[in-house]
């Protein structure tokens, strides 16, 4: 085998190795999905899993998990993520519009840096902050404080994706609006924003998915509850908190519920992700037409 053959063969071998590593990287995804489905499904198939609240653990052997459920956690996650969205989406979208439309302003570079740093800030530190800021002064854990913690997490994600979507809009649209004599706010909010809507929605959906799966910021803010709580002024349960707390307990029945809650969580998060991908593809197609 001459030198060139060796070079060609070794090139092929490296290419093969890299494909192998790529497949290797996907194995954890397959394993996480498989085990979550296999271990979570037995709990999830009982309809009361979605409606009932927690039942006290019965050991050593109680009939599967009949009667017990994570309804309170599903409601808690819904209420807190909903409240967080109400706070984070308007602020985040305006922030993103500022970043895209006034990108030459010197301040926008600092805002952008702050967004990127906030995305990378450990969520547990955000939890500590909200604890000191909202839980200590009011002397009790609450769904509101959990929602604020989640909103802080969502804000930079929404701002940066909105910025990306708005800067995709061709300048012609902006210029034609201004040429017609529209004020800047109408150009931005009534012309540019609707055109960028799919991208903005994608960002909001991704932020919702991220917030829905976060445990750390809720541990010292929403804290968790054993009963169905609808009032966000009280401590509330959330799905990820359920998974975290139950998984570490020695009771088999609660561990089964943790797996069930993990399955619900993963289905929700992956569904939102796939929807947002579909919306984003429409945005790119739309931007191509403009």
């Amino acid at each position, binding site marked *: 085998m001459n030198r060139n053959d060796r*070079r*060609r063969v*070794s*090139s092929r071998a*490296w*290419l093969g190795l*890299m494909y192998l*590593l*790529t497949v290797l*990287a*996907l194995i954890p*995804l397959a*394993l*996480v999905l498989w*085990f979550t489905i296999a271990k979570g499904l037995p709990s999830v198939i009982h309809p009361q899993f979605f409606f009932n609240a927690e039942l006290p653990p019965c050991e050593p052997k109680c009939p599967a998990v009949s009667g017990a459920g994570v309804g309170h956690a599903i409601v808690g996650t819904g209420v807190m993520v909903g409240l967080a969205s109400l706070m984070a989406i308007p*602020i985040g979208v*305006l*922030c993103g519009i*500022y970043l895209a*439309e*006034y990108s*030459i*302003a010197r301040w926008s570079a600092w*805002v952008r840096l*702050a967004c990127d*740093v*906030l995305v*990378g*800030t*450990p969520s*547990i*530190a955000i939890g500590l*902050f909200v604890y*000191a800021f909202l839980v200590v002064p009011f002397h009790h854990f609450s769904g509101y404080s959990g929602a604020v913690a989640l909103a*802080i997490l969502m*804000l930079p994600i929404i*701002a940066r994706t909105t910025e990306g979507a708005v800067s995709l809009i061709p300048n012609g649209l*902006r*210029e034609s609006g*201004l040429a017609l004599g529209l*004020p*800047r*706010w109408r150009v931005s909010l009534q012309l540019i924003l609707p055109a960028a809507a799919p991208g903005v929605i994608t960002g909001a959906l991704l932020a919702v998915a991220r917030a*829905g*799966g976060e*445990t*750390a910021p809720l541990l*010292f803010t929403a804290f968790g509850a054993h009963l169905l709580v609808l009032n966000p002024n009280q401590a509330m349960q959330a799905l990820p908190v359920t*998974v*975290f707390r139950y*998984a*570490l307990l020695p009771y088999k029945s609660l*561990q089964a519920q943790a*797996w069930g809650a*993990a399955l619900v*969580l*993963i289905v929700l*998060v*992956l569904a939102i*992700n796939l929807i947002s991908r579909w919306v984003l593809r429409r945005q790119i197609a739309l931007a191509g037409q403009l």
Partner: protein
Amino acid sequence: MAVAGAEARPVAAVSRRPGDPFRRVVGLVATLVPAALLLIILTLLQQAGPAIKQFGLRFLVTSEWNPVTDSFGALPAIFGTVGTAFLALAIALPVGVAVAVILAEPGQTRIRGVLGTGIELLAAIPSVVYGIWALYVLAPWTYEHLEIPISTHAAGIGWLGDPAVRGLLNAALVLAVMILPTLTAISRDVIRAVPRGLKENAIALGATWWETTWRVILPSARAGIFGATILALGRALGETIAVTMVIGNAYVIPHSIFQPAYTLASVVANEFTEATGTIYPAALIELGLVLILVTLVVNVFALILVHSTSREARLTA
């Protein structure tokens, strides 16, 4: 009308006139983000006050963690945080760069689309789901099929001894999976931003695919990949829940990579709700403060690296 010497300005410059209230309003709203960041740091600094006053810089280099005698030191938690993060990087970096190279290749867009979506979905899975999976599936498996064989073969090597189901290595393995998407996504973009001309020149000179990749593309994407690595490091340092579930929660500097340890974030997650008195919670908040400051420095450094490379690529392209 036209001012002497006025150059052609971008549209947005029009708004520099004072009569643009919209700019002021959105600018003010946008200021909430840096304000929140500053407020977070200042609040933690203020809340950690009692511990900072009591222990000073000694807090960072002592190893005792005793709520009964109110003496606290962060060294084992800092060691665990840095140790798990770097171990995770060592595992994830070769895989992440390989995936990025494959994803950045032109052609076969269908297969690459599926692979890319798969990697991105890894980032979508909540931390706590990784945690429960690692706790009940990964950790028992690595204990039996990795840690026990390695420690029996490497008998006598201290840091490869004493297998344990929960410990540093298992935490690092989960972290490696969790930071892989960050590593891959940015590396792929940086590799794609390498000017086509460079690659074409190498091919024209008769270089094979591997020679082009290893000697031309990766070296010119080096700074950006380094930035991606540092960004992933920041993520690994701050990751809380999955690590908390598998690291074993032992406030010591472990003598072996298989042994239980603790990280800054997981000490806070486990102990904060039960902390009473003044010094104990303040010490926990100081752990959080150390964590947030370290990740802040790491992230800013990484962002500067990634941005400067992408700008460089745009200029040379």
